[in-house]
């Protein structure tokens, strides 16, 4: 049964950050670093490129949302062969 069926659900803002594992070559990060150097930002030592996702998720409490989101990351949002992830959960501001 999905969490949305519960009366007491709140809406959470989840931010997921996915990055390539260190062993994986990241040509995109290199290209961005090159681009920054070309623009004169020589102080940039390296760049790694990754993904950022913002989810709105319904759930009764932070812990249960965290456990669901961690499943989502394992299954879909990151490919753990090449990527690592982390996420933050906080209450969404009511608009």
């Amino acid at each position, binding site marked *: 049964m999905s969490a949305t069926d519960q009366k007491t659900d709140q809406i959470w803002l989840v931010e997921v950050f996915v990055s390539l594992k260190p062993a994986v*070559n990241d*040509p*995109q990060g290199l*290209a961005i670093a090159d681009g920054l150097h070309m623009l004169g930002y020589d102080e940039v030592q390296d760049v790694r490129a990754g993904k950022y996702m913002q989810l709105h998720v319904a759930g009764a409490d932070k812990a249960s949302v965290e456990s669901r989101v961690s499943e989502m990351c394992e*299954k*879909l949002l990151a*490919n753990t062969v*090449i990527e690592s992830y982390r996420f933050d959960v906080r209450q969404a501001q009511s608009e």
Partner: protein
Amino acid sequence: MSTRYAVITFPGSNGEHDALKAVELGLQQPVEPVWYKETSLDRFDALLLPGGFSYGDYLRPGAIAQFAPIMSAVEEFASAGGPVLGICNGFQVLTEARLLPGALLRNQALEFRCRWLHVRTENNQTAWTSSLDMGEILYLPIAHGDGRYFAEPELVQELEDNDQIVFRYCSPTGETDGSANPNGSVNEIAGISNRAGNVVGLMPHPERAYDALIGGADGLRILSAVLAAGASKLGTS
């Protein structure tokens, strides 16, 4: 006896048309598209997962498609030993679904690459390469933006040791010195198989190479292997 091919089609697949025509016109075998919502593959002898941009390739190529309803049947078919060929996006789906090891990353040049090139046959014992000679060079088109095969070094070694590397990019005369590598794949890998050899994935497009008028017919050498093997699901039915 004919061999019944399925072309597994996800929302966003775009190589299904070529796969269907290659089997129909190039091999004169029965073939049907199978939409991702279906759940049974019992009526087929061989599966093709075509190229394209399933689910727009959003997130990662093949990432969302691995959970499509038809994939349970694909997994069952594969684990029963049935021949499964993943082409380009189909290869990406198979790696995401962990039916094949490793991952396919953004091309080293960060750009899409479309051209004809050569690959060398490294293993002619798989379901899809059994009619090829060892070392045979095939001329096939590629068209992809995410074809850089990656695996951790230990895994690459394992693939080498187990003969799971099926095709490597090579020069017209068969050299694999890296100069022919279009995407930065580790060890020039263009295609791999699972341990059993019934599941093969490759980035080049055999289904677009079935007629000399459009550049060559070498693709049929791959697509027809399951015929030569008298194919039907190896091990089952």
